[in-house]
C-alpha cells in the first residue's frame, strides 16, 4: 500500500520530502492538483496522481505552470482545496497570475509548492523563489524536516482558507528528494462540492485591494507568531544564535554539535518566514549578541531580520549579524553541514577540519582510479544525440556559420560534448524560439547566419508556441527543430498534450505538434532522427528557405521504448570492425560517443556495453563498415 493511502494515524513511515508534501495535501483533504513537471517538484503531483482514483481527487499535468496555477485557482474559487507544484523557474512562469490573484484573493485552500534547486543540479538557474512571497505579499512556509513537509502542507491549506490568499510552501532539493521519518495523521473524509459565486476581479480599486492584501498578510503574521513551526533549541541565555529556515535547520544542528557548541549556541528555527513573526523573533534574540543566518540560497531571511533589527528601539543592544553579506556563508550554491560549521568556527575562532587529511587522501586513492572521467551525456539510445549530429552536419554543409539557440529539456546537454557543443544559447522555457525569432530579423543589419531553435515536445506546448507565431507573424528567418521524444523526458517522462494519455494514465486526446505548426502557417516536416542522412538532407533543404519553418524530429525516448517493448541486442561483428585500420577513427565510441559504445582496448575493436545499451540501433546505421548489427535485423 502506498504511504499516501495508508490510513494508520500515529504510524511512522519513511517518506521522500515530496511524498510527505503530497501526504500533507491528502490529510488536508485536497481535491485538485495541477502541475507542470520540474525537478525537484515532480513527485508531488506524481504521488497525488497515483492516488487520485483512490481518493476521488483530480490530478492533471498542465501545459505550463501558469495554466496549472490558474486551473488550481479555479478549484479554489469554487470552494475546493487545490495544490500546484513547480520548480523555481515555474514560479516565474506563474508570476503574472500570482501578482493579480493576490489582489483578487482565493476561497478554498490553495497551496503553491515551489521547490527550489540550490546549486542548479537540474536547472538553468538557482533562483530563490521565496522572493516571490515578499514580492506578491503572500504568506511563506519553509519545511525543515520531512514531518514538517507533511504537517506544514496540511496547515498551509487551513491558513490559505482563513486569510483568502494562496500560500507558498517553499522546499529545496535536499528536502524534496531526501527521505526521513514521518508520523502519519488522519485522512479526512472529503465532502466538498464545487460551486462558484461572487466575483474575483483584480484591477478594480487596486490601492484598496492592495491595502486589503496587506491586512490579510498581517493576519497571517499574527498566525505565525504562535506557529508550532517556529522553535528555539539551545541554552536559554545563549549570546550566539543561529537563525535558520528550511534545509538549514539540520545542517545547523549538526554543525553546532560537530563543534561541541551545544551549551553556548542556540538555534532559532523558523518555518514561517514571510512575513516574519516579528515579536517571536525579537523575543528569542533579546539576549543574543551575535547571530549567524543559515539559509539556501539568497540572504532572504538575513535581509528581513536585518530590517527587523534596524526597526528596534535604539535602547536595544546592537546585534552582529553574520551570513552571506559578511561572507561567512556563500549566498550562492547549496549549503551543507561543513559550510555552516566552517562559518561558525571562523566566527568563534575555532579549529575545524571537514575530515581527517589522511582519510581524505586514502579515500581519493581508493575511489578515483575506479571512476572513468566522464562528461555529462545523453542516455544510451537518446534520439537527441542523432538529432544534434544531424543539426551539426546540416549547419556545416550549409556553410554560413549557422548556430543553435537552446531551450530547456534533456537536449540542454547539447550545449556540451553530448550534443557536439551545438547549443549556443540557453536560458528558460521557450527562450530558444524567441531568441531565434529575433536573430532571424537581423538580416537588415548584415546578419547572414542561419538560426536553428531547438525545443522539446513538452517545451513546445509550454512556452515555444508564442515564439513560433511571432516568427511567422513577423516573417523571421527561423528553423525551429522540435526534438519530440514523446514525453516530458527530463523530469521522468510525464505525459504532455501530444502523449495521448493523462496524468493518471488514462487515454487522452492528442494535440499534434505538426497540426499546430500548419495552423500557424509555417512549413513543417516530420522526420526520424535515426534516419540520420535523410534528416541531414531535409534540415539542409529547410535551411535554404526563408521565413519560419519547423522540423519535428520524432523518435521516442529509447529508455522508455526499451522498457516497454524489450531491448534488442546490438553487437559488433568483430570481423567487420577493423578497429584503427578503419577510416572512422573510432567514430562510434569517440565522436558519437553513446555510453553504450565502448572501445575494447584489448581487442582493439569497438564493442557494445550490453549493460547500458538500450538497443536503439542508430549506431548500426552510422558505422561506415556496417560492423554494428542489431540482432534479428542484420543487413
Amino acid at each position, binding site marked *: 500500500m502506498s504511504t499516501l493511502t495508508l490510513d494508520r494515524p500515529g504510524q511512522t513511515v519513511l517518506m521522500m520530502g515530496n511524498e510527505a508534501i503530497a501526504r500533507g495535501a491528502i490529510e488536508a483533504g485536497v481535491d485538485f492538483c495541477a502541475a507542470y513537471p520540474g525537478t525537484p517538484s515532480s513527485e508531488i503531483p506524481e504521488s497525488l496522481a497515483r492516488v487520485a482514483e483512490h481518493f476521488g481527487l483530480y490530478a492533471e499535468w498542465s501545459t505550463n505552470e501558469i495554466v496549472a496555477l490558474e486551473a488550481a485557482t479555479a478549484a479554489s474559487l469554487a470552494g475546493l482545496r487545490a495544490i500546484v507544484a513547480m520548480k523555481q523557474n515555474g514560479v516565474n512562469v506563474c508570476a503574472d497570475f500570482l501578482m493579480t490573484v493576490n489582489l483578487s484573493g482565493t476561497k478554498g485552500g490553495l497551496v503553491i509548492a515551489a521547490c527550489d534547486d540550490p546549486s542548479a543540479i537540474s536547472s538553468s538557474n538557482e533562483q530563490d523563489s521565496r522572493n516571490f512571497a515578499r514580492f506578491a505579499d503572500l504568506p511563506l512556509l519553509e519545511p525543515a524536516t520531512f514531518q514538517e513537509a507533511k504537517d506544514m502542507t496540511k496547515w498551509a491549506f487551513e491558513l490559505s482558507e482563513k486569510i483568502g490568499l494562496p500560500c507558498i510552501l517553499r522546499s529545496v532539493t535536499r528536502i524534496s528528494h531526501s527521505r526521513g521519518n514521518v508520523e502519519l495523521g488522519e485522512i479526512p473524509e472529503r465532502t466538498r462540492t464545487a460551486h462558484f459565486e461572487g466575483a474575483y476581479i483584480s484591477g478594480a480599486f487596486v490601492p484598496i485591494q492592495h491595502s486589503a492584501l496587506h491586512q490579510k498578510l498581517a493576519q497571517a503574521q499574527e498566525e505565525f507568531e504562535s506557529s508550532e513551526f517556529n522553535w528555539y533549541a539551545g541554552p536559554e541565555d545563549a549570546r550566539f544564535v543561529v537563525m535558520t529556515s528550511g534545509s538549514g535547520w539540520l545542517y545547523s544542528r549538526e554543525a553546532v554539535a560537530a563543534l561541541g557548541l551545544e551549551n553556548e549556541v542556540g538555534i532559532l528555527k523558523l518555518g514561517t518566514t514571510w512575513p516574519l513573526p516579528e515579536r517571536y523573533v525579537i523575543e528569542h534574540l533579546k539576549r543574543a549578541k551575535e547571530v549567524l543566518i543559515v539559509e539556501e540560497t539568497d540572504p532572504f531571511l538575513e535581509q528581513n531580520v536585518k530590517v527587523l533589527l534596524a526597526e528596534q528601539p535604539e535602547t536595544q543592544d546592537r546585534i552582529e549579524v553574520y551570513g552571506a553579506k559578511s561572507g561567512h556563508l556563500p549566498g550562492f550554491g547549496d549549503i551543507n553541514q561543513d559550510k555552516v560549521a566552517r562559518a561558525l568556527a571562523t566566527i568563534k575562532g575555532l579549529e575545524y577540519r571537514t575530515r581527517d587529511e589522511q582519510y581524505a587522501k586514502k579515500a581519493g586513492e581508493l575511489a578515483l582510479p575506479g571512476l572513468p572521467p566522464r562528461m555529462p551525456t545523453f542516455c544510451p539510445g537518446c534520439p537527441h544525440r542523432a538529432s544534434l549530429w544531424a543539426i*551539426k*552536419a*546540416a549547419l*556545416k*554543409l*550549409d*556553410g554560413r556559420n549557422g548556430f543553435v539557440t537552446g531551450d530547456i529539456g534533456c537536449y540542454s546537454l547539447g550545449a556540451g560534448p553530448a550534443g*557536439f557543443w551545438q547549443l549556443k544559447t540557453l536560458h528558460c522555457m521557450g527562450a530558444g524560439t524567441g531568441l531565434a525569432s529575433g536573430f532571424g530579423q537581423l538580416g537588415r543589419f548584415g546578419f547572414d547566419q542561419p538560426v536553428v531553435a531547438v525545443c522539446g515536445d513538452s517545451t513546445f506546448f509550454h512556452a515555444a508556441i508564442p515564439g513560433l507565431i511571432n516568427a511567422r507573424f513577423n516573417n523571421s528567418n527561423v528553423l525551429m527543430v522540435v526534438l519530440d521524444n514523446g514525453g516530458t523526458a527530463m523530469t521522468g517522462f510525464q505525459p504532455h498534450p501530444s502523449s495521448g494519455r493523462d496524468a493518471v494514465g488514462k487515454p487522452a486526446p492528442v494535440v499534434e505538434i505538426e497540426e499546430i505548426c500548419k495552423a500557424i502557417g509555417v512549413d513543417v516536416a516530420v522526420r526520424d532522427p535515426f534516419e540520420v*542522412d535523410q534528416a*541531414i*538532407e531535409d534540415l*539542409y*533543404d529547410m535551411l*535554404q528557405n526563408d521565413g519560419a519553418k519547423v522540423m519535428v524530429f520524432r523518435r521516442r525516448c529509447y529508455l522508455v521504448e526499451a522498457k516497454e517493448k524489450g531491448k534488442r541486442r546490438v553487437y559488433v561483428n568483430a570481423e567487420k570492425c577493423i578497429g584503427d585500420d578503419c*577510416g*572512422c*577513427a573510432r*567514430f562510434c565510441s569517440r*565522436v*558519437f560517443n553513446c555510453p553504450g559504445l565502448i572501445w575494447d582496448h584489448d581487442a582493439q575493436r569497438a564493442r557494445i556495453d550490453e549493460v547500458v545499451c538500450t538497443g536503439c540501433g542508430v549506431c548500426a546505421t*552510422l*558505422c*561506415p*563498415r*556496417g560492423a554494428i548489427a542489431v540482432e534479428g535485423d542484420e543487413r
Partner: protein
Amino acid sequence: METGKGCLDLENEVINAGLCTSCGACVNVCPYIKVVKDTVAVIEPCGIAEGQCYDSCPRTPTDIAALDRAVFGKERSDSSLGPYLSIEMAQAGDSSVRSRAQYGGVVSALVSFAMDAGEIESAVLTRPFDGSLMPSPTLAANSSGVLDCAGSNYIASATLAQLNKAAKQSSEAIGVVGLPCQVLALRKMQASKHETGAEGVKLTIGLFCTWALSYQGLRDFLRDKVNASSVRRFDIPPPPANVMEIVTDAGSVKLPLDDIREFIKPTCSVCFDMTSEFADISVGMVEGIEDWNTLIVRTAVGKRLIEKAKLEGAIETKPLEEARLDHLREASLQKKKRAIAEIVRRTGDESDLSYLRLSDGDRRKFV
C-alpha cells in the same frame, strides 16, 4: 600521387578554396564527410593524418603523366584529347533507347549491353530530375534502371558517393558513368594506396563536360521561371542559339545562356578535362547532330566492349568527319588553356598550377 594529407587539408585546399567538384569520391568512406545536393562538407575532423579523401580528390595534386601510365601504360601523345585508340560517331542500335536519351543513346546502350554481356553486374549512374532539379546518384542493376538515368544533367551530383556505398555492400563488378572530374577521381581511387571502393570497377564511361552548374544558384534562378518538380530535360542547343532549353511537363522554356553561366561552379573554370580523358570510353554530343554521339575509345577494356557491342548491334558507328574532330580537339584545347589561365590567375605564379602536376614541357603547351 601526393599523399600524407587528411580531411582538414581537403577542407582547406579544396572545399574552402571553391575547388570541390562534388564528385562524391570522399563521401561514404567515413562518417565525417557528408554531401547534400552538390555541397560537400567535413562535418568534424577525423584526426587521421593521411586520408583516402584527400588522396582520391580530383582537385588535390594530380600528376597527369603518372596517372596516364597507371591507366594506359604510357603517357599521352595527344595533349588535347588525351590518350585514345579511336574516335567515331555512334548511336544506340535500339531507336527506343535513342528516343529516351539526350542524343544518340550510346551511354545507355553500352551500359545495358555490358550488363547483358556479364561484363558488369551493376552500374553507378546519375538519375536526372527525379522530382527535383538535383540529379541523384543511382545504382542500376538492369536495363530499365539504366534507361531511367538517360539524359543530360547540368548539375554535378556526388555519383562516386554511390560507388563508395555500393562497394561496401558487395564486391561484384561495377560500371561507372561519370563526368571528367568523377572519372579522374575514380582513377585516383584505383591508384590509391588505400583500400577504396574502386577496385571492383570494371568499366568506366566518361562524359564530355564543359561545366556544371551550382544547384543552389540554378534553383534560385529558376524559382519563379519553371516548376522544378516537372523538369524533363535540359539541353544547350548548338551555337549561335546561346540559350539553355528547359523542357517541363508544361512546355519548354529558353533562358539566355549568359544568365545561366553565372551559376557555373567555380571549380569548373580550373578543369583541365573536357572529354573524360581517363575513361575507358568517352561519350559526348556531336555538335548539330541530334541523334548521334561522339565516341572516344581509350583503353583495351573499352575497345573490347565496343567491338562486341557493334557486333551484336547494341550500337552502330560511323566515322567522325575530320572537320568535326578538329573542332572537338580545338574545343578541348581551349578548355585546357582557359583552365590554366584561370589557375595562374588564382595562384599568381605560372609555375604553380594548383592541383595540376604537369611537366614543364606539357605546361608550356597550354600557358
